[in-house]
Every structure is written in structure tokens, then in C-alpha cells.
């Protein structure tokens, strides 16, 4: 069994008004040092099989990310079998 940690973020060219609003709030809280803040989605997918990377790529391309405005990256780790 594997655990895929998938991160979906907006492409740089895409303005994300939610992230802007959060950044403004952070600055208003007094953290003037904050210059930029982005927001994205995080998924944990437990997956079995021999072609895990290929399947995760497909799942990201088809559903988890909209490649028109988002990009994704992931890390895959092997989970220890339960004893």
C-alpha cells in the first residue's frame, strides 16, 4: 500500500482572490513581513497496485486539478504493512 500526498496549486498567472483576502488579513494582524500567500488543495490518497505513479497522474489530470488554471505535484511513500 502506498500513500500519495497530492498538492494542487493555482498557476502563477492565475489571480486567486481568496488567497489575496487571507494575505490582507494576515498583514492587518500586524505581520507586515508577509509578502505573498498562496492557497491550494491537499489530498492524501491511499492506493495499491504496481503502477501507482501513472494512476495518480491520471487522477490528477482528469479530476483533482484543472490544468487550465492549476498545477499539481505529489509525493508517494510506501506504507508499512499492518502486522
Amino acid at each position: 500500500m502506498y500513500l500519495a500526498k497530492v498538492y494542487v496549486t493555482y498557476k502563477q498567472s492565475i489571480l486567486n482572490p481568496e488567497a489575496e483576502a487571507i494575505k490582507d488579513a494576515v498583514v492587518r494582524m500586524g505581520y507586515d513581513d508577509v509578502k505573498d500567500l498562496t492557497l491550494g488543495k491537499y489530498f492524501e490518497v491511499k492506493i495499491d497496485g504496481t503502477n501507482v505513479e501513472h494512476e495518480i497522474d491520471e487522477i490528477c489530470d482528469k479530476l483533482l486539478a484543472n490544468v487550465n488554471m492549476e498545477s499539481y505535484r505529489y509525493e508517494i511513500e510506501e506504507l508499512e504493512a499492518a502486522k
Partner: protein
Amino acid sequence: MKFAILSFPGSNCEMDLYHAINDVMGETAELVSFKKDSLDDYDAALVPGGFSYGDYLRGGAIARFSPIIKALGEFADTGKPVLGICNGFQILTEAGLLPGVLQKNTSAKFVCKPVELYVNNNDTVFTNQYESGQTITLPVAHGEGNYFCDQETLKDLEANNQIVFKYRDNPNGSVENIAGIINKAGNVLGMMPHPERAVEELLGSADGKGMFESIINSMVSRGIVYE
């Protein structure tokens, strides 16, 4: 003629469309469940607004994997008209039937008000009852209506006259003030404003009626309708 109104868990404009077609236009519309896998019995398909699957992940992202969307793709391939409104537009872009994507409004606010639209292309199945350059007023109600596509796609849309409606006063940040686009083949249109909510003066505007008249007119003139 017979319209299919696709309905998904979370659709909320399907009855407005039903009223517009059956009561105002005097044609026949039926609700078709997202679980169905055929649209063979219909002349035109309407994808309504709402929040299909709660807009989980992204508007339209999950609805597009419903069995009915596969059928909708086959239906569109036959050249029959498909109109997606609001969440319906989002579903059509997610399904790849139209290019681009609907992002969050730049204001980060849900915008709900009547807006003025410019009819940029009246030579379509959906807009032939309007004058070119006519201004019509339709309501919008969306949080994710900010149309975006890459520069290459935008050039394509302009070159092929696929931008059908533009906002007079952009409410959501859409590129080139785009309110509605059509596919290259000219039979699939997606738009954020709601023509079905503007089919009687009592509702504040009857400007949306022209769209349904256009669809019916083009089907009749192509001899597709049998009484």
C-alpha cells in the same frame, strides 16, 4: 420539439428551464437524471445552473463524470444543440465540450444582479432572433463566473467568432468581458447569465426568451421538428 433538461444532485435551475420551455415557449421539456446514459429521444439538451455535487472540488468537476455527460458528448457530436447555463457552463468546460475554465470572481464575492450583455454573434443556433450588437439584460448569479483561457485559445475564439455574449460592465473579471462562448461546430453554447430567468416581463426582463426562440427557430428551419 423535445428538450432534455439534465438534472444533477444540487441542480437548482432545472424547474426554471422547465417553466420556460413548457409554459412560456409551449414546447416539451423533460427532466433527465444524471444517471441516464442516453439522450436519443431529444432534439436539444439544456444543462441547468445550480451547485451540482455541492461544487465540491470545483464547479462542475464531479458532475462531468456522471453517465449522462458521456451521453451528452455523443449527443453534441450529432450536431444537436446543447446549452449550458451557469453551473451548466462550468460542467461543459470541465467535460471538455468547451475550452477554458470558470474561475472565482475577482471580487471574491457572489454576484447576483441583472447585467447588460452585448450580442457579439447573432449567427448561431442560440442567438438568431437577436440583432447583432443588440444589448440584452439577463440576471447573473454566481461566485465562479470569471472566464479564463490561455492566449492561444482566446485568439482562436476570436478568429472563429465563438464569443457569443460579452458583458457591458464586467461583473466577475472574465477575460475580454466574455459572458458566453460557443464551440467551433456551433452547436454547444455555455454562458454564465440566466436566460431562463428572463422569459416574462413579470420577472423583470423577457430578453432571455430570444434564446429559446432561436433554438426552436433553427430546429424548425432545418426540418428537425415533427408536429
